[in-house]
């Protein structure tokens, strides 16, 4: 079963913290992979917060192809970071030849474009790269977005950490929000894209459990937005719903929960906003999720949240200290990273609430 975790911190953090968080929950997952998304980057990316960074795992040919496409579109590279890899024998990892994190300047004619135009361009570029590299398995394009990097690999998370030198903290590769999961996708084909977390236009989502409504979600989402593609894992649908409700429809975050886990009719009828709730349920019946799952999400403004299915069939716990808030499937993960916190203030979220961590690390609980 999946174990998931997320850290939001006042200071920049190295992913070793995320590895630590996940490693203690090792008994609960199957050691088949590790993936993480980092938002609000520090270290070498700190001075490029407004420029998009490409996260890519590929062959030599794939890299050339990707760079050609970007150059042709007018993007110019301003930074490249290739993690030093540790190719010790015996490591359980199915690695790609290259891992590339490159920051680009926008094409000249886009420099004055609106934020929205830039965001659409970045999505189109990522999709274009993805399809170009997908053809003959030349690589995987995880994200192309300002202030975000993504790393995914198949193998034992511990060994993946060793391979990328992620166990040794440094101040080069850091971020204030890190989400991570230990496990490859197991429900469907094993492909790198299928590993959580998933990322789209500033939104990140990861989940443990299962999406019973995968088929319905997928059939509906496919025609909703060009970015809703792949569907390598049933949990990807959670990301697309989050993106759709929050960004495309422009509804406030609490309505994400009303879409994925609508209140029972009996309860909704008693509410003052029942007309809106019914309208939402009617129009978006195909985005409902019947669980069982826990979702962790990050919004483009780096706000972190978690929520559960309507019956709370999966565990999750939120622990905090002065300068960190951690969301984790199991409390042992938090114990590992924040051993000295006051565990009495740990939150075990209810089925009908969203727990939100804002940028001041204030933890809010929103009843649905």
């Amino acid at each position, binding site marked *: 079963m999946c174990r998931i975790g997320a850290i939001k911190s006042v200071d920049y953090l190295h992913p070793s913290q995320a590895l630590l968080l996940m490693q203690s929950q090792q008994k609960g997952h199957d050691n088949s992979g590790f993936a993480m998304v980092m938002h609000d980057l520090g270290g070498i990316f700190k001075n490029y917060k407004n420029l998009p960074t490409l996260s890519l795992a590929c062959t030599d040919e794939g890299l050339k192809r990707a760079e050609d496409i970007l150059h042709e579109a007018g993007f110019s590279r301003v930074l490249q970071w290739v993690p030093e890899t540790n190719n010790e024998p015996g490591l359980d990892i199915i690695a790609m030849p290259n891992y590339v994190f490159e920051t680009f300047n926008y094409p000249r004619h886009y420099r004055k474009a609106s934020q929205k135009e830039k965001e659409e361009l970045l999505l189109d570029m990522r999709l274009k790269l993805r399809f170009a590299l997908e053809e003959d398995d030349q690589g995987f394009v995880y994200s192309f977005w300002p202030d975000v990097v993504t790393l995914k690999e198949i193998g034992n998370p511990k060994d993946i950490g060793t391979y990328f030198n992620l166990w040794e903290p440094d101040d080069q590769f850091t971020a204030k929000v890190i989400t991570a999961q230990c496990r490859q996708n197991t429900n469907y084909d094993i492909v790198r894209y299928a590993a959580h977390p998933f990322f789209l236009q500033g939104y990140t989502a990861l989940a443990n459990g299962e999406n019973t409504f995968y088929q319905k979600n997928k059939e509906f989402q496919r025609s909703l937005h060009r970015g809703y593609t792949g569907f390598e894992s049933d949990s990807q649908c959670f990301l697309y719903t989050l993106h759709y409700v929050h960004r495309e429809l422009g509804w406030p975050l609490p309505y994400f929960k009303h879409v994925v886990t*609508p209140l029972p009719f009996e309860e909704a009828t008693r509410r003052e906003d029942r007309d809106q709730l019914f309208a939402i349920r009617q129009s978006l019946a195909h985005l409902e999720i019947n669980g069982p799952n826990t979702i962790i999400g990050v919004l483009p403004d780096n706000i972190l949240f978690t929520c559960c299915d309507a019956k709370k069939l999966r565990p999750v716990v939120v622990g905090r200290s002065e300068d960190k808030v951690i969301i984790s499937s199991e409390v042992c993960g938090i114990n590992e990273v924040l051993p000295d916190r006051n565990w009495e203030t740990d939150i075990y979220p209810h089925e009908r609430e969203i727990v939100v961590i804002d940028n001041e690390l204030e933890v809010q609980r929103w009843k649905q």
Partner: protein
Amino acid sequence: MEAMKVNDVTPNDLPWKVEYDASRCTLCGSCVAACSFRAIEPKVERRRMIWSESEFPEPKARFSAVPVIRQAKSIRNYCRGCGICEKVCPNDAIGPVRNPDTRHPVITRCLGGDSIKRGGRKNLEGSVRTLDRIRVGRISQMTDPSLDAQRHTFDLLAPFGRILPPEQLAFRVTEDGRLAPSGQSPPVNWIYPVIIGDMSIGALSWRMWEGAAMATAYLNEECGLPVRMCSGEGGVPERLLKSRYLKYMILQIASGHFGWNRIVKTMPSMVEDPAGVLIKIGQGAKPGDGGLLQAQKVAGHIQSIRGVPKADLLSPPNHQGLYSIEESVQKMFLSFNAAFKFRVPVAIKVAASATSVSVFNNLVRDPYNIVGGFFLDGIDGGTGAAHEVSLDHTGHPIVSKLRDCYLAAVTQGRQGQIPLWAAGGLGKTGDLAADAFKMMCLGANGVFTGKLILQMAGCVGNDMGRCNACNTGLCPVGITTQESALAHRLDPEKVAQNIVNYFLAMDQEFKKLMAPIGNSALPVGRSDALVATDKAVADRLQIQYVC
């Protein structure tokens, strides 16, 4: 010896033979009195008995007149195999037996010079139905715990009304981060996903109709199941139109517009809106045929509700005076929506046919946002009267057509915007929950059923040609007759009780099916939960094949 008349009708030419044991019969007369078809009659037979009392034969003869019961040898009063005689006989002396050598289809046409008509039961070829080749195959296991059918709450409601796509919802975001309404939306009623199908007050006896209406009210008010009943074409008693129970009724308007005049006239005195309006374009049991209510069923109260004389009432196969589907739908929808001031959802019912997906595609574009539902009616159901040739040889089964419509909506990203309701032989085996559940997984929002409701009430007809005499007005159990004596065989309270109990049982069964697949809402579109044991069915419906 009389000359042989080879063309005389004998019981051996008829679909049923009445088997009679004179030695057990006490001549009480019950069977003859009860047979609404006059298919048996008393007769006196002349008997000759020879006997001898001495040691050597000294034959003596005695003649006597013996009263017996015998079968009518007529194509008019032929036995329908309903078995009422057997039910009433205190001595097990009589009962119908199916006659495999029947010449009925030929001699009836030859002698009558007319097409055969019968009550709407479809004798579909093939013994296993498509729905029975499908199983609910996705059972939650380790990663996907099943729900508990007894303990968890389930939402068993389906929308009736036009569903707007999310970006068209009339919302604005308030300053405190809430969604507030900012305009009008089409009316939507959330109702129980099984509608009591459209059977008119002329087709059913008033006691049957009353029983069903009573059950509907009881299910709503005492059991908390918001079940709706469709009036069928032919109007509604004024008292009901003016009562608060109207809110449980879906009013139907069909091509004959029977009864609609009275509904319109009563509007000013209505205290409740009806649950919806259903415009019947076509029906599944006899697609292409209009409605047919024969004069013998047009009783006094039917004449007054519909405003018609006692004559055969033929509802034309299409709405007269309309040129195309778009036009008809626009016109009707606009007028009927307007009639109820756009507070009542208006849906359309068409026959499943090779072309129904085109009609659906047409509606899905619905620029006025007024198509409140697409009711798709397939063969294998039906209650009304029809020409046998239409019943047996035209029409389309429902399963694949429903699936086609759903997938057409999926292709356009418009699934759910016009709720899909399906019917046609659902619950034929008695298990409506299973059939309805599978139909929902294939894309239906809900189902409607008529024939099964009759069966709940005590209909003895079946799909093997038993009874099916609904057209004659001689229904032996009082369900589809307007003859007072026959209608009084039916106890409306008992009818209501049976329907209520069936719905309660079905409600339980829905939960028993939803729990294992991990659904707490209706499984609309969850085709991944189904598997087919037949490759062709699996391919056609795009579900998993298992063997």
